[in-house]
Structures are given as C-alpha cells and as structure tokens.
C-alpha cells in the first residue's frame, strides 16, 4: 500500500512540475494536445468498465451494472457530482439489501 501511495504521489507531482519546465512549443504539437485530451477520458472509461464487470481477473455481470446504470442516468440528467455518486452507490446498496 505504501509503495502505491508514495510512488503515485511522486509521479503525479512530477507531472505537474514537468509542465512548468518543458518548452512551451510542446503545446503547439496537435498530437500532444490530442493525446492529453483522449488519455484521461479513455482511462476513466476503462476504469468504469473494469470496476463494473471484473472481479480480479474474472468477468461477471452482477448488481454493480444497475448501480452504473443509475449513475449514467443521473449524469445524463445533468445531476451534480455528488448526486451521481450517491445514485450509483444507493442503487447498488438497495439491490444488495433486497437480494
């Protein structure tokens, strides 16, 4: 756990500092701009998929899918951040409590 915390923190901080240090021309390269725009979105989408359908290295469809659907519905209705989070968690918790 400590390795993840410390290595992760150091890497994230160095990324922030690197933007202050590298030459500004880099922003003029459309590939850099495109990659930087796509990468976070792609990672978030991957995390959503894996956290919903994977348990370790096995794939499964369970009550988490309903929680994800509730969160997507809330986001689609332009609900504020916390409402999206609570919709996902509460739906999952309610379904787990029932069955």
């Amino acid at each position, binding site marked *: *756990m*400590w*390795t*993840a*915390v410390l290595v*992760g923190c150091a*890497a*994230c*901080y160095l*990324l*922030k*500092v*690197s*933007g*202050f240090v*590298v030459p500004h021309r*880099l*922003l003029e390269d*459309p590939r850099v701009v*495109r*990659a*930087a725009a*796509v*990468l*976070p*979105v*792609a*990672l*978030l*989408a*991957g*995390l*959503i*998929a*894996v*956290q919903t*359908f*994977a*348990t*370790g*290295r*096995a*794939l499964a469809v369970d009550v988490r899918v309903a*929680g*994800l659907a*509730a*969160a997507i519905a809330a*986001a689609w209705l332009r609900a*504020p*951040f*916390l409402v*999206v*989070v*609570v919709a*996902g*968690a509460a739906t*999952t*918790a*309610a379904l*787990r409590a029932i069955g």
Partner: protein
Amino acid sequence: MRDEAVRRERRGILRDALAIGLTTGGYAISFGALGVTTGLSVLQTCLLSLLMFTGASQFALVGVLANGGSALSAAATAALVGSRNALYALRMAPLLAVRGMRRALSAHLVIDESTAMAVARDGDPPQGRFAFFATGLSIFACWNLGTLAGALGGQALGDPETYGLDVAATAAFVALLWPQARDRTTRAAALVAAAVALCVVPLLPTGAPVMVGALVAVAIALGRDRRRR
C-alpha cells in the same frame, strides 16, 4: 472606478472559488471513506489528498487497489490519469511566471478546476492569477478536510459493499467523464478503451487492462487524426 470594478470581480472569483471548494469537499468525503474501506490507513488516505492532490488519480489508485491490482499498476494508472495536469501546467506557466520555491508550490495547485478558472480569465493576467490561487487554495483546504472526515467516518462503516461504496468510485468516474465526452471522437475513444480493457481482463494482471485499453484508444485517435490530414 477601475479599482472598484477589479474589487467587485475579485469578490465574484472568491465566491466561485469557495463554492467549487465546498463541492469538491463533499466529493473528498466519499474519497476518504472509500480509501479506508479499500484497506488504506487513515494516514495513507490523507497523504494521498495532501501530496497527490488530483481527485481522479486518487480514485483511480484506490480503484485499482480495491480490485486486487499491484501497487505499481495502481501508481501507474494514477500517473496516467494525472498526465493531463502536465498539459495544464504547460498552459499555466506563462500566466503564473513563478520561479524557484514558489514554482514548486504553485505546481501542486495545478488541477482541473484551478486551471479552468484561470483560463476563463485569459485576457486579464492579474485576475487569472488571482483566480488560479483562490480556487487552488480553496480546493486544497476543503479537499483535505473532507478526506479526513470521510476517512474517520469510513472506519466506522465496516464492509464497503453494504453501502455500495465500491460502485461509488465507478459513479464518480461517470460524473468526471460525462462533461468531457462531448464530441464523437472522444466518445468513440472511451468506448474503445472500455471494450479493449474488458477483453484483456482475463489475460493480464489486474490494473494493466485499463492502461492497455487507454493506450490503444489514444493510438487509434492519433491514427485517425493523421489519416484526416
């Protein structure tokens, strides 16, 4: 007259910065609770908010660990998610024009919200700088207090699955992703990344599929740009 207008605008910036801070504070409470229920200590959870200080990366790190991923894949995923901050810093460098120690401290405040608030005042550098620091510091205070409250509360909760907290992180990613996935190319990249990640889940160690999916999606997006030119 001009002074009065500047002051009025600054009050508006402070109000916005405080509102953004309070909102992220609520979000930090869920991060704190999720951190300790994943198996991090209260200290580790709070250090993440103090030292990493970039929300999506923190949720990503905790998410990979919760799913049984290795420490290094968790740290690498967090770093990849945080790579956008490098671009933000690149954008902020000429505006802030700070050196030495002040530069090292300002860099820490480079996140989505502080950059967005500064960029929105692009034509007025002093106000842009003010917005950057007001937003960054407001979020820094609320984010860390929220994390501490959530971590202490989360300890009392017990099994995170009872409360659907495992899906809270997923829902947080949906909320972060939604406003960014406006154009078709970005949405396509999101779907490709999700599909590829799921396909390789049985084949690769936990934590790696998300990175592989994202790299494939970025490669496809760059390839399409090239063909278009």
